[in-house]
């Protein structure tokens, strides 16, 4: 099964690719934080423009980014359906008994802009370095070792588990299974997912054995070779200044 990988464009060359992973994660995290805290539409819109600019600067193709954004769109769509109908405020349109409020629409737009900006920034943040550099940087940033291990193993084995699931569904289809909106489909899919869990559990035991036999004692050690330069701090200063600017703009605009 082909699955798009977050570090597919880590080999490109851009100011974001050459940025020290640790400083990049911290700086862009500050920017994400300022975007999710945006208190009005103008600031959230500025944040989105900034996020688009950073994706452009990272040279990651927008087609690849949009491919991942469709899930965010689904999430945001729910807010656009629910909030204009449920938040009270000035009515801007009415369809029979359904009343659409301006306040609800504004709130849904604000949530949508925040969500898009934050998710867009994930691409320049972790899509511009190899996944191993991301996890090594997180480890150097003192993220708990167990959490880093969970991230590493999830990323490594999600593809294996999905491949396995694909094979199981293929085997089911080869024996005449056709999915539909019925109880039989629910039961079959439930059984397949249950079997995947059982197999994954067995696999974790085997992986643990393989780790222990190579000296694993509960702490994951990785070799990293990060080197900080002046330009890393300059980039960080610029991004953090933008984050602060956005945050304080929310108070004044």
């Amino acid at each position: 099964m082909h699955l798009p990988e977050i570090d597919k464009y880590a080999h490109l060359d851009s100011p974001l690719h050459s940025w020290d992973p640790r400083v990049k994660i911290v700086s862009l995290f500050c920017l994400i934080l300022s975007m999710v805290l945006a208190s009005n539409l103008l600031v959230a819109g500025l944040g989105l423009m900034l996020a688009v600019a950073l994706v452009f600067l990272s040279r990651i193709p927008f087609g690849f980014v949009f491919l991942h954004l469709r899930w965010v769109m689904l999430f945001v769509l729910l807010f656009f359906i629910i909030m204009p109908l449920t938040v009270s405020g000035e009515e801007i349109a009415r369809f029979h008994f359904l009343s659409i409020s301006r306040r609800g629409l504004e709130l849904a737009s604000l949530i949508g802009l925040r969500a898009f900006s934050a998710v867009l920034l994930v691409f320049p943040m972790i899509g511009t370095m190899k996944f191993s550099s991301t996890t090594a940087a997180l480890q150097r940033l003192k993220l708990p070792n167990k959490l880093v291990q969970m991230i590493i193993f999830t990323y490594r084995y999600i593809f294996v588990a999905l491949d396995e699931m694909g094979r199981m569904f293929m085997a089911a289809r080869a024996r005449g299974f056709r999915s539909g909106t019925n109880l039989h489909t629910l039961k079959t899919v439930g059984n397949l997912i249950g079997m995947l869990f059982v197999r994954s559990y067995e696999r974790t035991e085997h992986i643990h054995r393989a780790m222990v036999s190579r000296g694993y004692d509960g702490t994951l050690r990785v070799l990293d070779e990060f080197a900080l330069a002046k330009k890393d701090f300059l980039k960080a200063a610029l991004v953090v200044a933008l984050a602060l600017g956005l945050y304080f703009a929310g108070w004044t605009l």
Partner: protein
Amino acid sequence: MKEAVRIENLHYTYPEGTQALKGISLRIYEGESVGIIGPNGAGKSTLLLHLNGILPAAGQGEGRVVALGEEIRRNDKRIRSDIGFVFEDPDEQLFMPRVFDDVAFGPLNMGLSGEEVKARVKDALRAVNLAGFEERSPHHLSAGEKRAAAIATVLSMRPQILVIDEPASDLDPRSRRNIIHLLNTFRMTKMIATHDLDMVLEVATRCILLDEGKVIKDGPGEEVLKNRELLEAHGLEMPLSLLLRSQNF
């Protein structure tokens, strides 16, 4: 010849009650290449798991395993860099996001310096013909490359004994040939559990036939593998190359 492994009257019963080993005793000498054969459930993998003390703690066992002069106990960590264990499924041996980290995993746990780790990774990958694969994701390797990378993960620890479970399962003929060639280039003591008896003929100087948790036959590779009646009595078949030779092909 100096003794590498001594197993004395080894018994092991899994928590669910399966008696996997019933009094195994054998000696392996330094530099030997030993093929361990037997039908499914014979106890091959269980025997190998005793060599670096990683069997589940809930199981019941008795007997002694001495490797490189030290008695091995369950969860014994001292010996693990000296005995390299390659598991059957490379997706379980290669658990890191890139090949470099997988091959470096053992040396880093041994507490080696960064420079030493990098040198070992380079040597190990070169030894399995995977130089330049450092940045590759294990998920994107072919079955043969995964198997070779799995072997590199223990070679980087520079073990004195190499233990491999089913090195050729799921491999196409070319990849299988590459693994046979690789195994023949390694000079350390080797213990290889497999159903591929033609492979045993090519890589092992000695062959141990296990069935129902017991040693049935222990002798020079060709001598054991030529014994058609014995092999068939224990659910195995004579290697095709020997069969053809016996029929003057």
